[in-house]
């Protein structure tokens, strides 16, 4: 029986391709939009993921990572006094202006990391040595800064530029995840960042902390909040806080949500309609099957087999195309594009729903089918 069902499906080449195209593009649209959305969300968290520290301590009312509410600089030692803290180091983070040799200005995200441990430094060093940050007036810039500040010909190791009227020298070129605001990252030591930035009363942006063995980051964040009254979040919590803030305060969520929904509806419309036509056309064959004794349940199974088969093939093609799109256009981080397993599973479930719903219409038709239809005109 299953063989017959598949034969019926693949037999009508035009309808099969139509059906496949609808499902493929529906899948591709949802996956591609979903990935771009998640890519944007990843970029929005890059301030956190680039630093890669287990627990972030800051003002309890903070909304997102780029919104900096500095602490008094004794906060580092207050956090160190909390039981369960393995280490705690200061972090400076802020947007500053870099002035180039030719007089152009560029906004940069200045990151000041603890000078002795260099905790928070980027994990991939493209050129130079990150230890050289300990030398006077040095910074490490990311690949985006190289592009923005004049390209690899002009920005290389040893190039000097000004940050807030302080001359700095490039000691290393590192790889960092692009940020939502798209400011290049410039790393330096905490003390130097304090020296470079303008005078304000408080400058300590964040305290980074790590739990001792046996204490989870969640537990540590809870303890720090309890003992000090400061806001403490794990990397994930802080990332979600940032994502939530963006979804709430920008139209990004609604935009992408609409597109994904549209993909779903269009996919369902095409698939449903084509499948229905497909069933109508094969009504005589189904009638014959019913006439030789096939039950409605069996026919329904055949229909579901057909729709799931084409659905899975469409899914495979769709995610393949979306991945290909990601690999070609988003290469080198030019476009935010991050495919994730949950997205793929979700799209798979959505696609099976599309298939089930569209076959439901056909099954309803078959249930009412009289075997006698075979013998009519």
């Amino acid at each position: 029986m299953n063989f017959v069902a598949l034969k019926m499906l693949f037999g009508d080449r035009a309808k099969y391709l139509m059906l496949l195209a609808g499902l493929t593009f529906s899948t591709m649209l949802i996956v591609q939009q979903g990935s771009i959305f998640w890519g944007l969300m990843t970029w929005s968290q890059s301030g956190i993921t680039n630093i890669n520290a287990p627990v972030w301590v800051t003002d309890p009312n903070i909304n997102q990572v780029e919104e900096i509410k500095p602490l008094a600089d004794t906060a580092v030692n207050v956090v160190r006094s909390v039981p369960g803290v393995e280490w705690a180091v200061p972090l400076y983070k802020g947007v500053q202006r870099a002035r180039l040799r030719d007089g152009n200005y560029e906004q940069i995200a200045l990151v000041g990391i603890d000078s002795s441990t260099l905790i928070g430094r980027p994990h991939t060093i493209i050129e130079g040595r990150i230890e050289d940050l300990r030398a006077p007036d040095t910074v490490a810039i990311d690949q985006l800064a190289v592009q923005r500040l004049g390209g690899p010909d002009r920005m290389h190791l040893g190039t000097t530029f000004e940050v807030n009227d302080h001359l700095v020298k490039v000691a290393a070129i590192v790889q960092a995840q692009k940020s939502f605001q798209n400011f290049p990252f410039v790393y330096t030591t905490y003390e130097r960042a304090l020296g470079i930035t303008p005078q304000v009363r408080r400058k300590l942006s964040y305290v980074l902390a790590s739990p001792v063995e046996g204490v989870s980051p969640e537990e540590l964040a809870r303890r720090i909040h309890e003992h000090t009254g400061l806001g403490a979040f794990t990397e994930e919590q802080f990332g979600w806080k940032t994502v939530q803030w963006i979804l709430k305060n920008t139209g990004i969520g609604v935009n992408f949500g609409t597109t994904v929904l549209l993909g779903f509806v269009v996919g369902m419309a095409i698939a449903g309609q084509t499948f229905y036509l497909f069933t109508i056309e094969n009504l005589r064959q189904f009638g014959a099957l019913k006439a030789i004794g096939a039950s409605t349940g069996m026919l329904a199974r055949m229909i579901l087999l057909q729709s799931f088969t084409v659905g899975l093939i469409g899914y495979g093609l769709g995610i393949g195309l979306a991945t290909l799109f990601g690999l070609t256009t988003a290469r080198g981080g030019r476009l935010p594009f991050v495919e994730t397993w949950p997205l793929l599973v979700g799209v798979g479930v959505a696609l099976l729903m599309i298939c089930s719903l569209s076959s439901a219409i056909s099954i309803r038709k078959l249930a009412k089918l009289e075997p006698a239809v075979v013998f009519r005109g």
Partner: protein
Amino acid sequence: MMFRRLSVWLAFAGVLLTIATLWGARDKPVAPPPMERPPHNPYLSTVAAAGIIEAANENVRIAPPVSGLVTKVHVKVASHVQKGDPLFQLDDRELRAQLQTQTDSLPSAAARIAEQDIRLRDLQEQLRRLQSVKDRRAVSEDDVQRKWHEAEVAKRALIRSRADLRLAQTQRDEVQANLDRLTVQAPRAGTILQVNIREGEYATVNTNEPLLLLGDIETFQVRADIDEVNAPLVVPGSPAVAYLKGRTEQAISLTFDRIEPYIVPKRSLTGDNSERVDTRVLQIIYQFEKPTFPIYVGQQVDVFIDREANPE
């Protein structure tokens, strides 16, 4: 039959490509390990503080007793001095001249005493002789009386001359004392940490910068700043460890000395010297023995103070 379709193979290819891509991008990069071990707390629970190394018993800021020209600096940075060793010399020519004058006036005063003494003895001799004449007609009572008065005046004059000599001596001693004061001496044994005065410069009494900074660099102490928020957590007498910035492998164990009873506004130790009056800190003084590795007065340390298991 199904597997003769190109679309099926393409679908497989698509799934494989996606899985391969996602598998490759699956790993979150591991945080690079700290360049060196961050200062970490060796106790069950702790109060952490920022500290600065000082010479034990605080540093002595040497100032001149009076303003004046510096003619000689006897010490260099890092010289060891004993109590009473000369440190620097102020210009003393004027006082030396005065001393000479005073000294030279002494023989004259002494000679005057001798002179008065001889005169007194002469008068007493005359008086004795007048009194020894029994015949009232030969010597008038008036003469005797006058001689007696003369002798008495001479006695007082001798006393005054002696006092004059003592005064002259005292005046000479005063000049000598003032002169001695111009040689500034070490108030206690120690090491010269800073020299901010050169020969030929004029030292004034009221300067912010000490002319010399004297400290004991054989035994150090750590002044640990604790945020006032954490001040109630400190148990007096608790042991502590300190880590030098840039040398976190070896902890320096500290012994409690005292808690400064007055909470002071934080002096920023973290590189920025702008005033921040919103934070006040409790200062605790810890003593420690000089470790085997080099250590310098003024270095910053991270301090962890043992906090006995507080009832949570």
